[in-house]
């Protein structure tokens, strides 16, 4: 598996560990939500980066108290038409204030990549050998957006009012009233 992150393929520095397997001696690990709950104390205490893989039926709010200890959350697109992970990403970013990596796995179309980044997903796991040019092209397909989301991209509502969008949807935006555009 290759990881597309911040515009380039990156090596996968994480190890996925199943619920019953022993943790590797060192290195960053991804565990299921169940395992995180079960072994939380020892995982917290360990001197390693922890990631949790959420099924798309699990609410990120289950990690409310834990988000500070996690460096990675893995979200799933079992089918590309199943868009639950978009909301999971929004909740992680906006509600929980998660600043670590959110990684999408499963079935994804390059045409969803832009939506993913807008929702706060910053990495995508792709089958080995997938050409990434399409994904990168997809990122620049739109230069304007109507609505605020979890990313830093400026959106029309703010721009029209002459304001600068500086935060995510969960922060209050102070905009000036003067419109930038004449109509």
């Amino acid at each position, binding site marked *: 598996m290759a990881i597309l992150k911040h515009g380039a393929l990156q090596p996968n520095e994480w190890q996925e560990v199943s619920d019953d397997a022993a943790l590797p001696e060192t290195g960053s690990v991804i565990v299921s939500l169940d395992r995180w709950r079960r072994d939380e104390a020892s995982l917290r205490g360990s001197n390693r980066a922890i990631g949790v893989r959420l099924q798309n039926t699990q609410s990120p709010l289950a990690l409310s108290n834990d988000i500070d200890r996690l460096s990675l959350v893995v979200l799933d697109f079992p089918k590309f038409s199943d*868009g639950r992970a978009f909301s999971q990403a929004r909740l992680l970013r906006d509600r929980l204030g998660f600043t670590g990596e959110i990684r999408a796995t499963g079935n994804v179309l390059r045409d969803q990549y832009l939506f993913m980044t807008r929702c706060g997903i910053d990495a995508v796991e792709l089958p080995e050998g997938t050409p990434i040019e399409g994904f990168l092209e997809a990122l620049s397909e739109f230069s304007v957006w109507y609505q605020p989301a979890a990313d830093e991209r400026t959106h*029309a509502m703010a721009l029209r009012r002459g304001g600068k969008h500086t935060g995510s949807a969960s922060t209050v935006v102070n905009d000036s009233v003067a419109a930038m555009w004449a109509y």
Partner: protein
Amino acid sequence: MYRYDEFDATFVRERVKQFTGQVERRLAGEITEEQFRPLRLQNGVYLQLHAYMLRIAIPYGTLSSKQMRKLGFIARRYDRGFGHFTTRQNIQFNWPQLDEVPAILEHLAEVEMHAIQTSGNCIRNTTADQHSGVAVDEIEDPRVYAEIIRQWSTLHPEFAFLPRKFKIAVTGAAHDRAAVRVHDIGLRMLKNEAGEIGFEVWVGGGLGRTPIIGTAIKPFVEKQHLLSYLEAVLRVYNQLGRRDNLYKARIKILVNATGAEEFARLVEEEWQSIKDSALTLPLEEIERIRQYFALPEYESLPDWTPEFEAARKANPEFARWVQSNVKPHRQAGYAIVDISLKPDGGAPGDASADQMDIVADLADDYSFGELRVSHHQNLVLPHVRQQDLFALWQRLSGAKLATSNIGFITDIIACPGLDYCNLANARAIPVAQRISRTFSDPKRLAEIGELRLNISGCINACGHHHVGNIGILGVDKHGEEFYQVTLGGSSRDDASIGKIVGPAFSTEDIAGAVETIVTTYLGARTSEAERFIDTYRRIGIDPFKEALYGNSQARRPAAE
């Protein structure tokens, strides 16, 4: 009406470019049909019975004469000379070629139109009252909010892959002409005790396999919280809506399964955490959008002059048309004109390219260049001077656009049915045509009075038959087309789902069955003032059952 600024124009251009690329990739085999399908659906391209179908968005049913002319151009150049106006205020073309769709979209972009999100599991066209801005009972123009919602919902990154389609409607009047109670989200504008205007939020209404009237989950949302509240509803739906069964994936199923109270609580919880975010609508933004919907410069004119009355008296046909197709306007001296797209024996909601050009001209001449599309599949000229009504009527008559049947039994709402649609079990249009011819006598129409008749060719109910006073559902019985009748539906303030009256009728018998129903009503009503729906509610379904199926009454054959 709304005019694109640089954002909107850039956005649509980029969207056209994106879809053009996607079509190219599809034609070159770089993506499969399975991968392409959600992409083309989100650009309004269906694969139908005979060909592709393109559904173009007409946001909240408002369009300009320039846009209407462009639709006529597209009908001629890229299609077969006609289009079909739908029950969600959009327009459909039945014969576009996939490899020409990018060109069509470019033409549309030139006049600030598009086909974005008219299909797919995303938020669809937000519809509104077709008499917005000018209706006498209006509290506030709902299109201001429909436009705000349109922008918020367009390419919303979180809600592009919902469990299923999502439809929002807004009404801003005392009387709901937008059928908000049978939408996924229905917004009803009202004044609270403090005199502030806000939204009553209905959720989980819908037709189709499991028709249901929605529930009001929030009695009052202030304007500035509109978008954050909608976002909360959609976020809950996106996470919890069923993904395992296509037929159980709408929000109405979720609301029902969760319970309305619990559902409202889940939304409230989400909303509380986002309500003061960047989604908050400043009053200035609302006012900025409102400027686009400013009313035209009306003249100061007297209302219903003696000259007008004289013209009415002198011409009974004109008088009939005024009675049924002309509605009062908030501005003295003006009127709202409903243009019927239901001529005798016609396909409901269809308009030829010629007719599109004609109504565009009429809009320029008589209505400040503005038109509306109603979810009853008719058109509206919203700003007509009463003194122009006679001339307008004459020109409409010349184009088969002056049928005096708005709200009457021949103002039929029908889906395209098996003549066009891949999903259909039976044809709807021939049934509509037959019923239309049966009741074509204008005197009889007026005598029968207000009667909504809806026909759907399958259980997906795009003809909204569940909320017809008389609803007809086409079914397939052993490979033959049969028609099941429901009675007592309504899409208005008194919204109700129709009840099945009995076994389905054959193609030969269905028009006669409708006649029998009408005759039963006429015989039972207390006066001409008692509408069909009122009589039905008073006497119940049994007298109709009796008349249709009871004893040895021979059914009247359908009139030719």
